[in-house]
């Protein structure tokens, strides 16, 4: 297992370099000047030229890229052009908010999605099955910005139960977590349902029933345990992508997380900040996938770490 993890980590190094190179190249081919953007309507050509020189923006692209890589290797992601602060500090300060949101959304997705999937599978084609599958379909299909606005209008403006936006109390977490987790809950519910239905047709389930086990025990102990294999894999990947920043949710609910930092960096052509954010998010996704693969092999002993 250790060898497997080590191999995967080594393979991820070229992935990281490739991602940063691709991003650097893309941002260099599209037009845009971070200093002109900083000054916007108050542009002064003389000032732009002078500040560009002072920020080494006129150096050749490959020099700037190698400078970034050399810094990254030493743990220094540089300083944001726009916010003038160290990139690592900006990301690490924002990450706890994104982490909290991702964990809350994932918990919502699992707590709602798994039972919904079980009920739908056990009572196939019943009213509750249709209800839960409709619920999951809505979650998967409805864009986050739309469900967010509906939730804000209903629960904050009309009913006054929750704050519209912000991130300074547990109440602020409820709506974004539900909105963000709804789509994941839908996927988890559907996957749990189909996987459980497949497992429940297996011989060992019939055997368990034949030896007189209660229905609930058959489902939870024998059925669900085996049916969760694909669900766990998806859940691990979901957590990784949630951690990588829920851009729209963070924007609509005004959550100062990594996603908002990344969007701000793109808009401002803030190369160091964007490179740092993408590098960070790539690492999260790589680790998420690695965790999923490791979990998969750990849960199913038939799968080997090759």
């Amino acid at each position: 297992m250790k060898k497997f993890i080590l191999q995967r980590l080594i393979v991820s190094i070229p992935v990281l370099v490739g991602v940063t190179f691709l991003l650097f190249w893309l941002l260099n081919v599209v037009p845009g000047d971070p200093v002109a953007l900083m000054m916007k309507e108050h542009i002064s050509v003389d000032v732009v030229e002078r500040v560009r020189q002072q920020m080494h923006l006129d150096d050749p692209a490959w020099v700037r890229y190698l400078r970034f890589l050399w810094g990254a290797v030493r743990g220094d992601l540089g300083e944001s052009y726009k916010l003038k602060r160290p990139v690592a500090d900006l990301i690490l300060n924002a990450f706890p908010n994104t982490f909290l949101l991702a964990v809350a959304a994932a918990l919502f997705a699992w707590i709602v999605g798994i039972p919904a999937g079980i009920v739908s599978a056990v009572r196939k084609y019943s009213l509750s099955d249709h209800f839960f599958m409709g619920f999951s379909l809505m979650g998967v299909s409805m864009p986050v910005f739309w469900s967010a606005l509906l939730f804000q209008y209903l629960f904050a403006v009309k009913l006054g139960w929750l704050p519209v936006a912000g991130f300074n109390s547990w109440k602020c977490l409820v709506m974004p977590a539900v909105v963000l987790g709804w789509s994941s809950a839908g996927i988890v519910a559907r996957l749990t349902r189909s996987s459980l239905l497949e497992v429940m047709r297996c011989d060992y389930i019939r055997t368990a029933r034949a030896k007189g086990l209660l229905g609930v025990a058959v489902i939870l102990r024998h059925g669900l345990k085996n049916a969760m294999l694909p669900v766990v894999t998806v859940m691990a990947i979901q957590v990784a992508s949630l951690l990588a920043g829920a851009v729209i949710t963070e924007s609509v609910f005004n959550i100062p997380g990594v996603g908002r930092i990344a969007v701000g960096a793109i808009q401002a052509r803030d190369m160091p900040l964007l490179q740092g954010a993408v590098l960070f998010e790539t690492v999260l996704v790589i680790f998420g996938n690695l965790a999923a693969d490791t979990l998969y092999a750990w849960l199913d002993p038939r799968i080997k770490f090759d």
Partner: protein
Amino acid sequence: MRKNWQLLCLTALCALLVLACGAWAGEKVLTVAYNEEPQTADGQMTTSCYMIPLNVYDRLLECATVGPGKSELVPGLAESWEISDDGKIYTFHIRKGVKFHSGEELTGKDVVYTFDRMLDPATKALNTDILDFVDGAAERMEGKADSTRGLELVDPYTVRITLKEPFVPFLSILASPQASILSEAFTRPLGDKYGLSPETTCGTGPFVLTEWVLNDHHTLAAFDDYWRGRSKLDRFVVKVVTDTETMRMLFESGEIDIFDCDFAISQIPYFLGHKAWKDQIVSGPRVGIYYFTFNQQIKPFDDVRVRKAFQMAVDRKKLLEKLYYDQGQLENGVMPAGLIHYNPGQTVIPYDPARAKALLAEAGYPDGVDLEIALIASASSQWQKMSEVVQAMVAPVGFRVTLVQMDEAAWYATRKEGKLPMYCQKWSADFNDPDNFFYTFFGSKGTVARSFNNISDEVFAALDRGRSELDFAKRGKLYADLEKTIVIDQAAWLPLFSLKHLYVTQPRVKTFVVPWNGWSDFSAYEMEVE
């Protein structure tokens, strides 16, 4: 024992909750929303987001709002000043007893340091152009001098600034937030880390920056030792809200006290028609102008007849009525109402589609002509709407307009090169002087950097004269003539209108002063809440 621990933890938690909920109870707190994260609290390092500089610092002079859309230069940190007869030497007498938030007293040394720091290349300041006229500024910026020749400390409370040539708007410029005064003792050791957090920010202004959560909010607390007297507010909280719908809902749920309609123009009819909010609207004229540009480097606008035809093809009155709910007045020049030397008698640009069509034919386009309007994708929808309406409005005359969407970075980069096609924008006064409008758009560098390309030696020479003309009446006449040359004779831009600035306030807001220039950034010093 275990139970005791649980009890202790529970009590501590309850106490924390009570403290958290009651910390601001009974305090007078004004909460507003702003649509952008300030880059820094250092006024020298930003060209937008002046909310922090306007509240945390003071300037030598202040541009006070003395009536709707009216301003007056009043003494600030300089108690008085003298200007030499040749208009080149400014002597400022610094107010005594003014304290910085750090507790030390302001002296002339801080003033000299502030302006010299701005010109120091190590600072990488973005606002150096406001000090371009100071003697020795160029050498300092180029790193050829260790100090600025024109900045002198005469005695601890007297500062002399010498200009290389007369520059009439200089006093007005010193009242702009870029010219906020810093503490040398506090700022110098911090280097480029100054202004990035509450701990690294210090001014003499009415509020102290006490909390700053990036992308969330910043909190300013009243400064007890403020030289003009403590603010009536205890705290002033600015939330950073990028989504306009969220901003509106925050206002409607009472989480913010003031809704700035500039952040969401389309919400104006909603508030005007809402029975609970329509009486809560506070508005005031702004010294600012909406305009369309003509890029004379791009056909067909290289021909003055085409530019004049476009001016006459746009029904500006209808634009004002339909898109901005008639909340403003038409403008025909470069200077909007409220600006010093504003000329209400400026020749009116008529709406005359028939004449526009004839002019277009005369210019060699009898079958019409293609042109582009450049828009920033995902920016405020007002530009999109305005461009779409104008596109339809000018079509019968023969202008076949294509709307080109660009991302913000590309838009500004292309404009800086002088290659952006026609676009629509607005400009509000940074300081109350015609130079802030004329030189910005029609100066030799500005006209290229803003993609007008109105290369006119006559205009450039007149602009230079305007900067140094000391006689008030002569200067007014000069700008009135120049306005006619630029707008009527050269048809270098299409002025549209100046709009009122509308805010909706919660009933608990007792005093809210609409800033004279129409900025969304304002000083909260005179604001009051119940």
